[in-house]
Structures are given as structure tokens and as C-alpha cells.
């Protein structure tokens, strides 16, 4: 087990290096005149040249990248070129916000999609058709439209929730709930559609297995058969989809955080990328890559716990 974890961590480190190198080169090539973008239309050409020099943008790509890498390896990700804030602080102050949205959406996705998937698989008939219809609908409607619809109905008309902003859980639980509920729902809808279908299919497959017939012949109740035995066997594929969903939600958070003006990684990613704020974008790339590596590792371990057949040696 430890050997497996170490191996995965080493491959994660290699992945981080490759991702950071490719990202830096792409940012450099597509960055254009970043000093001009920072200073805007009023600055003179000389002021722009001075700014480029101060930021080190007048140096060759290799020198800039090796400088960034050597600092990054010592834990110094630099400062945002646009706000002057240290990148580590910019990320750590926002990562909890995004994770609370993504984890909330993942949890909501898991609960609802398992309920819907199992219900459809066990009851079949019209229930199955309704669940399938809802799934297709969830896939078809874009997340940002769902977000805007939720804001108009539940925040602006009914005034049940806040249309924008974020309150920390530690500051106020009701405030946190009022600000994360709509974004979490908006994020979760697409995921529910996908995972519910996966759970439905897996449960139907599992219900056809011999061991289920045996369990039933021993007089076990339907609920016990489904929730204790079938779901555990059907959970593997669903968990794999859910992990992919989690990574996808990090991307989905970009749009949702913009619409709800939530100070998370997604919001800052949009701003930093469009501005060409290389230190901040690089920090975000690293943070996201680390989260993805960790999530995949945890999912692998969970798969092993759920199903002894895939337990790691």
C-alpha cells in the first residue's frame, strides 16, 4: 500500500513539472504585451518598457521560467502582477471557498444520483423513464443557464438566497448556507444527471447477478439486498464517475463563481488568465494539479476499500 502511494506521489510530481512547464510556455507565447495590459491605455511607451523591466519580462523565456521554477521549488510562488498579493496567500485564501462549493456539489451529486439511480433500477417502468428524462435534461441544459435561472427565481424574486457573494462558514453558518446553496445546486445538476445514469446501470447489472438471487432466497429484505450488497458492488463505477465529476466541477466552478461573484479559485483563474498574470496563473495551475492528483489517489484507495477485488497489494 505504502509503495503504491509513494509511486503515485512520484508520478504526481513528474506530472506537476510537465504541467507547469507547458503552462508557462503557453502563457509566455500567448501573453502579448503584459506590461501594457497592466498599465492600460494611458501609460506612455517608456512607462510600459519600465514596467516590463521591473517584472523581468524583457528576459528570455528560459531565464524567466528557470527563475520561476527555482523560486517555486523553495515555496515562493511570487506576487500577483495585478494586485501585488503573494500568490500563496491569493490561493490559500480562496481554495477553501472553491473546495466548499465543489465538495458540496459532489456530496449533493452523490446523494441525489444514488437515490435516483437506485430508485430507477429497482422500480423500473415509469420511474425509470422519468429518471432518464431528468438525466438527459440535466445534461442538455448548460450550467450557467441553470445558475442564472436559480438567481432570478430564488434570489431576486423570492429573496431566499443571496444573488452574489460568499460568507465564510466560520463567520456565519446561515450566511454560508445562503451564499453556497444556489451555486452548489447549479454545479451539481450536470453531475447528478451523469452519475445517476451510471448508478442505475450498475445497480441493474448487479441485481441480475446470482448472488442477489441467493440473498433473496435466504429471506433478506429488498432494502438490505440493495443497500448492503448490491450498492457496494455497483459503487465502484459510480465512484470513478464521481471522481471525474469532481475534477470537472473544478472547471465548472469557474463559470459559477463568476456568475455568483464568489471569491474562489475559478473567479481568480478567469481574471488572472485574461490579464496574463503569469505568477498567479502558474500558482493556480499547480494548486489545481495537486488537488487532482490527491483526489485520484483518494479515489483509488476508496475503490480498494469498497471492493476487495480491486484491493491493492
Amino acid at each position, binding site marked *: 500500500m505504502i509503495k503504491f502511494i509513494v509511486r503515485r506521489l512520484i508520478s504526481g510530481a513528474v506530472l506537476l513539472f510537465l504541467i507547469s512547464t507547458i503552462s508557462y510556455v503557453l502563457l509566455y507565447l500567448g501573453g502579448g504585451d503584459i506590461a*501594457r495590459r497592466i498599465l492600460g*491605455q494611458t501609460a506612455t511607451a517608456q512607462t510600459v518598457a519600465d514596467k516590463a523591466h521591473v517584472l523581468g519580462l524583457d528576459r528570455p523565456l528560459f531565464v524567466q521560467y528557470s527563475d520561476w521554477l527555482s523560486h517555486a521549488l523553495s515555496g515562493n510562488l511570487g506576487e500577483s502582477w495585478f494586485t501585488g498579493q503573494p500568490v500563496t496567500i491569493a490561493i490559500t485564501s480562496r481554495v477553501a471557498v472553491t473546495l466548499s462549493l465543489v465538495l458540496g456539489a459532489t456530496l449533493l451529486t452523490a446523494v441525489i444520483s444514488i437515490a435516483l439511480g437506485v430508485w430507477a433500477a429497482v422500480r423500473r417502468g415509469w420511474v425509470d423513464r422519468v429518471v432518464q428524462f431528468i438525466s438527459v435534461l440535466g445534461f442538455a441544459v448548460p450550467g450557467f443557464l441553470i445558475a442564472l435561472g436559480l438567481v432570478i427565481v430564488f434570489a431576486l424574486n423570492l429573496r431566499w438566497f443571496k444573488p452574489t457573494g460568499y460568507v465564510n462558514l466560520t463567520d456565519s453558518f446561515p450566511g454560508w448556507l445562503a451564499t453556497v446553496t444556489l451555486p452548489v445546486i447549479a454545479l451539481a445538476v450536470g453531475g447528478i444527471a451523469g452519475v445517476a445514469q451510471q448508478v442505475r446501470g450498475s445497480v441493474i447489472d448487479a441485481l441480475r447477478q446470482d448472488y442477489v438471487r441467493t440473498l433473496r432466497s435466504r429471506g433478506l429484505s429488498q432494502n438490505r439486498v440493495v443497500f448492503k450488497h448490491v450498492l457496494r458492488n455497483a459503487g465502484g463505477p459510480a465512484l470513478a464517475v464521481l471522481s471525474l465529476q469532481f475534477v470537472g466541477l473544478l472547471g465548472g466552478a469557474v463559470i459559477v463563481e463568476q456568475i455568483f461573484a464568489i471569491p474562489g479559485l475559478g473567479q481568480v483563474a478567469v481574471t488572472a488568465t485574461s490579464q496574463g498574470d503569469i505568477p498567479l496563473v502558474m500558482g493556480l495551475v499547480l494548486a489545481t494539479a495537486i488537488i487532482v492528483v490527491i483526489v485520484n489517489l483518494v479515489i483509488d484507495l476508496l475503490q480498494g476499500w469498497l471492493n476487495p477485488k480491486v484491493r491493492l497489494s
Partner: protein
Amino acid sequence: MFRWKRLTAVAAVVALGLTGCSAAGGDSSSDTASQTLNLGVIVPATTFSAADANWANESPYMQAVYDTVLKADPDGTVEPNLATKWSYNSDKTELTLTLRTDVKFTDGTKLDADAVAQNLLRFRDGVSPNKSLLASLKDATAVDDKTVKLTLTDSDPALLTSLTQNAGLIESPKAFSNKDLKTNPVGSGPYTLDTKKTVVGTSYVFEKNTKYWNPSAVHYGTIVMKVYQDPTAMLNAIKGGQVNAANTPNNNSIDEIKASGFTIVNGELNWEGLLLFDRGGTMNPALGNVKVRQAINYAFDRPALLKTIGQGYGTVTEQIFPPSSVGFDKSLDTHYTYDVKKAKELMAEAGYADGFTLNMPSSAFFGTAPFSLLQQQLKEIGITVKYTDPGNNFIPDVLAPKYPAILMVLQQDPTDWQLINFQIAPKASWNPFHYEDPKVNEFIDTIHHGSKADSDAAVKDLNAYLVDQAWFAPWFRPASNFTVDGNTAAVFQTGNAVPYLWNIKPKS
């Protein structure tokens, strides 16, 4: 049965929580009563370092924590602030400022002449986008504790106004070496930044400076500046009552905003239209011919453009000087009334009866309508516009210069001298071909060195000459709208994107 009871209880707790949250979160009205201003802004603070400070949309951040040497009224009139008196020598190359003696920075340091001198020199040598405001500053020295002398390389007609803007921001000298200078300002302003409650880039919380020397300029106990870079989010925040005052996302949403009980405070900050950069015809020979430039001006149906692009909010214009300028002449706004026939005649007289191709940049930032309409209207007189989208490099490419003409929204500075040095003078950033006209240079020289009367007359003549020579093809001045709720009042600031902070106050 028991499970349902438990579920009902959980639902009730959540509902109560949300209800409680509504009260705790607070609508803007209750915030105002407790003297909190929720201000919606469209950009984060690039830096709080006074030496590198931005202005315009970032001015509220700076005005919260810093004082400026001088202060501008809403109409642009320069008033005392940290400096109570000022005087020039005979050729206006030395400015002597007398400072207040009762001002302290929030770190306890006393404001003195040396602090002001150091700040001015730091701004001149810094990397602010507006550092050219102090380009003529040769030196700044403390004569005594309350007297500063500024020595200039040449007179600067806009210097006093510059000292009301970011060039005049004064920071505590003790903070110059602070590592967190960009995010933790130390000034003498009416508020202090609460760095613990602030989320950089998203929301900035300012608390009242209880020891501020001018309490009448402090209208709130707390100011929260919330950044909404997405126009939809800003609109939702306004409609949801989460802000008391805000930049209006765009003119499309004005009716919705008014329906939410908000009032629009508007002014005209920019002009929109064409900059015919290549007046010398080096890149596109046709533009070197004044008749072609005049024909382009005749080709635009400006009222229709204002209605379509600006939703009717703004004023049609054909000059780049604003109504607040001494050079403004209302009659110039009908100099080139829409006349396709006349435009075609001018094209023929210039030898371009068959038209020509004009390469221009486009940008998603302005939407597609202005570019389509521009293309259509110039096609009517035989000019084929071909667009290239430089993406994020729009401004760098435009100023390189890579295009003979562009469509742009440009600011109308609060002083004529600033506007001239921004868009007209041979070295102006927005005269990227550095086109020179002896007559224009003569006007500029008189504006620079002449008496007040001569200078004012020269601005007027310069404006008329530029319109006649068709250096530009302005369409209209779009209305810049600022939104306030029923409990808040604001006054538009001439030449600035947003009202100055002390002019946003509770209505009562």
C-alpha cells in the same frame, strides 16, 4: 413517523437559519442606517503603493486610505487639501506649496514637507500608468517642515490637477520599505484598510479613521468595496440590494436598475469614434488626404449610431474636447452632418472615387455592433474596412502602431493639457504615428506658455482646427452611469470614471 418528524425539524432549522441569515446578512438599507457603504466596483486595486497607483476606476481605493496634496471639486476646480496654499514663480517652473500642520499618518508619523517631496519623487520614478503626470518634475524639496518647493523642467498647465489625482497621493515615508506595501497601505486618509476582512481582488473593507483631520469628509463607519468583474453579477448585486452604489454594468440594463429603485447619476467621460492615426499617409496614403478624412466624417449617421450602440444614452459629438473644456464649441458638433453625397464628392476630389481598403483592428471588448455599423457606413462611400482581431494585444498593437485608423472609446481628461498630451501632441501615446502639424504645434505652444486668455483662445482654435482637419471622426460621448440606491447620493466627477469617494454619502 419519527423519521418524518426529524426531517421536518431539520427543515425548520435550515429555514430559520436562512431567515436569520437574511437579517444578519443585511440589506443595503439596514447597512446604510448603520453607516456602512457597500460600493460595487468593476476592478480590483492593482496596488495600494502610492508611488505606483492607478486612478479612474481605482480612485475610490486610493481616496479611502490616502490624502492628495490638492483636491478637485466635481467640476474639476482645484481646492486646498493637504496643501492649503500654493504659488508659482513668474515662468511657472517653480511651485511652492504650504502644507497643513495637523495631519498624521495612521502609523502615527506626522505629515511634513519632506514626506510630500519624497512621495512626489517616488511617483515620478515609479511604475504608475500615469507617471507621466509628473514627467516635468525636476525636483521636490522641503523648504521647511510645512513648505515644499517643486522645480519643473518646463511649466505644466495640468500640474495642479495632477496633484488632485494619483500623482498627489501621500503615503507614510515609514511604510516605503514595508514588504506588504502593495496590499497594506499606510496613509493619512479618511479610512484604513482592514486587511483581515479584505479578500484581495474580491472585497476590500475600510474602517473609519477616527483621528482623521477632516471629519466632514467621512460619511460612513465602514466602506466595503465589492469587485464585480462580471456585468451580470454586478446587475444581480444591484437588483438584489447588495450594494448601495455601483458602476452601472452597461446602458442595456438601466431600465432594469431603475425598476429596482435605484437612481442613475450620469455624466460623460469618454468619446467614442474613430482615431484617424495615419494623418501623414505613411501606412495608408488615402488617410493623408484631408478630404478623405472629412469624407469619413460625413459618412456617419451619428444619431443612429448613438441610438444603436449607446442605447440613446449620451450626446452626439464631432469634437474630442468635452463640454467642460474652454475649447468646446457646440456648433462644431454639426460640422459634419450625415451626408453620403457630400462624402462621395470629397472622395472623388481626393482621387478615391473608387474607394480604398482600410485595415482596422476589432475587439470583442466593444461588442460586434460598432464594427459592423462602421463597416456598413464606410462601404456606402466606397471604403472597404478589413478587420483583424489582435485579441488581448489590442492596445499594444494599436499603439505600436500597426493600424492606420481604429475605433475606440477614449477618455476626455479633466484638463485640456492632459487631453492634448494624451491624444494630440506629437509625443502623445494616442498619436502613435507621432504626426505633427506646424499649426497644431503652434497652438500647443501657446496653450503651454501663453497667458490664461491666450491659452484659452488657443485651445478653442486648436479644437476647431482638429475638427476641420478631421484628425478624428468622433461619433458620440456615451453616458457613464453610476447607480445609487434610495439612501445614497453621489455627484459625478468631471473627467473621472466614478464619483470621488467623499461625494458618495448618505442621502439624509
